[in-house]
C-alpha cells in the first residue's frame, strides 16, 4: 500500500495547477480517490464526519443490484434454452447468460464513464460516482438481445441529455437509467417491444411474450403461474423478472437506509389501490387480474426498488415521497391497463412523476411555510 501511495504522490504534481497534465486533473482525482480515501481534514464546522461518502453509498446500491443481476444472467440462459426445447445443466445456462449480459454491462459502463469523465474534465469539477449505479441499472432494464450499439447510444443520450444538460449529477430531473430505457423504447421500438426480444436468440416457434404482453391482447389465461412470475423464470428485461431477487436487493437498501422505504411502500400501495379499483370495475380480462399480480409482473418491482427511489429525481421531502411513490404505483397500473401501446407503464409512470416531483415538494414546503406564517399572525393578533 505504501509503495502505491508513494507512486501516486509522485504523479500528483503533474496533474496539479501548473503541471504537465493540468487539464486531466479531474481524471487523476477520480482515480486517486478510487484507490484512496483522501487525506483532507475538516477546517471549520463539525470537526468529525461520518464515514459514509458518495462512493460508499453508490457501492451499496450496486451491491443491492447483484441479486437481480445474477438471477438475470441465469434466466437469460434458461429462457434461451427453454425456447429451443433444450434443458441443459445450470452452468451452460449461466455461461450463455454471461455471454449475453456481460458485453451489455461493459458497453454501458465504458460509454457512460467516458462521457462523465469528459464533462468533469471540461467543467473542471470532480467525477461523480452516480454513474456507478446508473451504469449497472441500464443493462438490467434492457432486453437480453439488445444490440450493443443501441446500448451505447442510449447511455450517451441518458448521460448527456438526461444529466449533463441540467448541470450534472444532483441537478438532473429524470432518472438517467430510465431515460436510457425510454430513449430506446421510442427510438427503436422494434427492439424494445413485441414478443421477439425478451428471449435471447429465441426459436421462432416459441411464444416469447411477457406476462404484460399476454394481457395486452387480453390473453389472461396464458399468464404464467404466480410462482414463476415471483421467482422470475419468465421472459423479460435482464434484471426485472425476478421479484424475489429484487426483494433481496430491497432488503439491503432498506437495511442500510440508502433506499427510501417510504417510497417503496407507497409505490406498492399505489399499485395495489389502482389494481383493486380496476377489479371493482372489471370491464375486461386485464382489469380482472388480481391486484397483487401487478406487483410481480414486468418492471413494477424493479422500478419500485431501484428507480423510484433514486434520490435525485424523486421527491426530496419525506411527505412528498409518500405522494410521489403512491402516484407512481397508481399511474403505472393505470397506463398498463388503459394504454395498449405501452405495456410497461412503470417506466413512464416513474419518468412522469420525476417531472412532477419538484412540484410535489413545492406544495409540501408551502404547507410548512403557511404554518409558520399562521403562527406569526397568531402572535401579533
Amino acid at each position, binding site marked *: 500500500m505504501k509503495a502505491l501511495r508513494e507512486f501516486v504522490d509522485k504523479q500528483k504534481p503533474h496533474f496539479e495547477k501548473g503541471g504537465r497534465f493540468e487539464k486531466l486533473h479531474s481524471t487523476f482525482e477520480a482515480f486517486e480517490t478510487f484507490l484512496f480515501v483522501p487525506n483532507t481534514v475538516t477546517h471549520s464546522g463539525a470537526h468529525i464526519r461520518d464515514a459514509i461518502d458518495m462512493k460508499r453509498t453508490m457501492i451499496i446500491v450496486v451491491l443491492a443490484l447483484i441479486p437481480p443481476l445474477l438471477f438475470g444472467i441465469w434466466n437469460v440462459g434458461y429462457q434461451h434454452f427453454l425456447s429451443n426445447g433444450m434443458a441443459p445443466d445450470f452452468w451452460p445456462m449461466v455461461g450463455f447468460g454471461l455471454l449475453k449480459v456481460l458485453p451489455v454491462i461493459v458497453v454501458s459502463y465504458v460509454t457512460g464513464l467516458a462521457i462523465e469523465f469528459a464533462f468533469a474534465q471540461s467543467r473542471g469539477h470532480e467525477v461523480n460516482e452516480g454513474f456507478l449505479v446508473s451504469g449497472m441499472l441500464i443493462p438490467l432494464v434492457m432486453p437480453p438481445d439488445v444490440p450493443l450499439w443501441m446500448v451505447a447510444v442510449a447511455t450517451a443520450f441518458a448521460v448527456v441529455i438526461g444529466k449533463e444538460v441540467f448541470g450534472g449529477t444532483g441537478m438532473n430531473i429524470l432518472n438517467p437509467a430510465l431515460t436510457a430505457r425510454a430513449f430506446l423504447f421510442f427510438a427503436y*421500438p422494434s427492439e424494445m417491444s*413485441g*414478443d421477439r426480444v425478451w428471449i435471447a436468440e429465441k426459436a421462432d*416457434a416459441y*411464444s416469447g411474450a411477457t406476462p404484460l404482453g399476454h394481457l*395486452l391482447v387480453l390473453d389472461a389465461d396464458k399468464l404464467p403461474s404466480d410462482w414463476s412470475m415471483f421467482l422470475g423464470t419468465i421472459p423479460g428485461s435482464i434484471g426485472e423478472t425476478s421479484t424475489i431477487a429484487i426483494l433481496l436487493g430491497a432488503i439491503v437498501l432498506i437495511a442500510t437506509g440508502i433506499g427510501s422505504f417510504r417510497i417503496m411502500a407507497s409505490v406498492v400501495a399505489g399499485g395495489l389501490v389502482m389494481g383493486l379499483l380496476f377489479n371493482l370495475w372489471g370491464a375486461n380480462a386485464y382489469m380482472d387480474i388480481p391486484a397483487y399480480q401487478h406487483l410481480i409482473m414486468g418492471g413494477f418491482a424493479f422500478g419500485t426498488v431501484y428507480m423510484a427511489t433514486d434520490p435525485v429525481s424523486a421527491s426530496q421531502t419525506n411527505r412528498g415521497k409518500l405522494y410521489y411513490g403512491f402516484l407512481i404505483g397508481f399511474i403505472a397500473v393505470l397506463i398498463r391497463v388503459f394504454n395498449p*401501446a405501452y405495456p410497461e407503464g412503470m417506466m413512464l409512470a416513474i419518468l412522469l412523476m420525476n417531472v412532477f416531483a419538484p412540484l410535489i415538494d413545492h406544495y409540501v414546503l408551502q404547507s410548512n411555510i403557511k404554518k409558520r406564517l399562521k403562527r406569526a399572525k397568531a402572535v401579533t393578533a
Partner: protein
Amino acid sequence: MYSNAYIFRYAGLMVILVAAILSSAAMLLKPMQERNEAVDKMQSILSASGIQNVTADNAIELFNDYVVNMVVIDENGNVTDEFKGAGKENSEAFKINLKEQLYNKSVNRGFKLPLYVLEKDGETINIIPLRGVGLWGPVWGNIALKSDFNTVVGVTFGHKSETPGLGAEIETPVFEDQFPGKKIFSEEGNFVSIGVIKGGVENFPADVQRHNVDAISGGTITSNGVNDMLKNVLESYVPYIQKRG
C-alpha cells in the same frame, strides 16, 4: 385620434379588399388543387394493382387507360352507378367519401361504396379502397382482387401516425408483400376475410395459411386495426360479389 367613422370605413374597405384578393386566388388555384388531390388518390389505387412508374404527371392518363369501370354499389350489393368513359376522376365512384359511408354502415344506415375495375395485361383487377383505425389514428389502403373476387393481387396501406418501427411497418413491403395470393373466401365459398395473426403463419395448417398473414411484432394494436379494417370493408362487398355469382 381617429373617428369611429374612419375606423368603420377603414375596416370595411379592408374586408372587401381582402375578400376580393382571397376569393380570386382561390378561384384561380382551385383546378390545380383538385387535380392534385385526384392524382394522389389515383397513384395509390394504381400501385395497389402493381402498376409501376406512376408519377404525378402521368397518373390521370394512366388511370384513364387502365381503369375500365368505376362502379358504385349499395349495401345490398346492387350497382347504382357505373362510369366507363373518359374523365373518370369526375365519376361518382371516385368522389365517394369512404369514411362517411363506413360510418353509415356502422350505424346500420344505407351506404354506397366504390369499386374500381382495371384491365391490366388482359386481366381484370378489382380494387377496393380500405379505411379503418390503427392505434393512434386512421389507417387506410387499397386491396386489389383478381376477377374471381377471391385472390389478392396486391395491397397498399397507409397510416397517419402509427409508431415508427412498429405499427408504421404496415406500409413497408415486408408486410404488404405477404398478401398477394391470399384468398378472402374459404374453399367452401364462405367469406373469411384476411386475418393478421401472431405466432408465425407458416407454423399453422394450410387452411389457416390461406387466409392469414403475420402481424407486426410489437405492433399488435395496429395489426389488429388492419385485420378489422379488412374484415369490415370486404364484408360490405360480399352481397355484391355473391350476386355476381
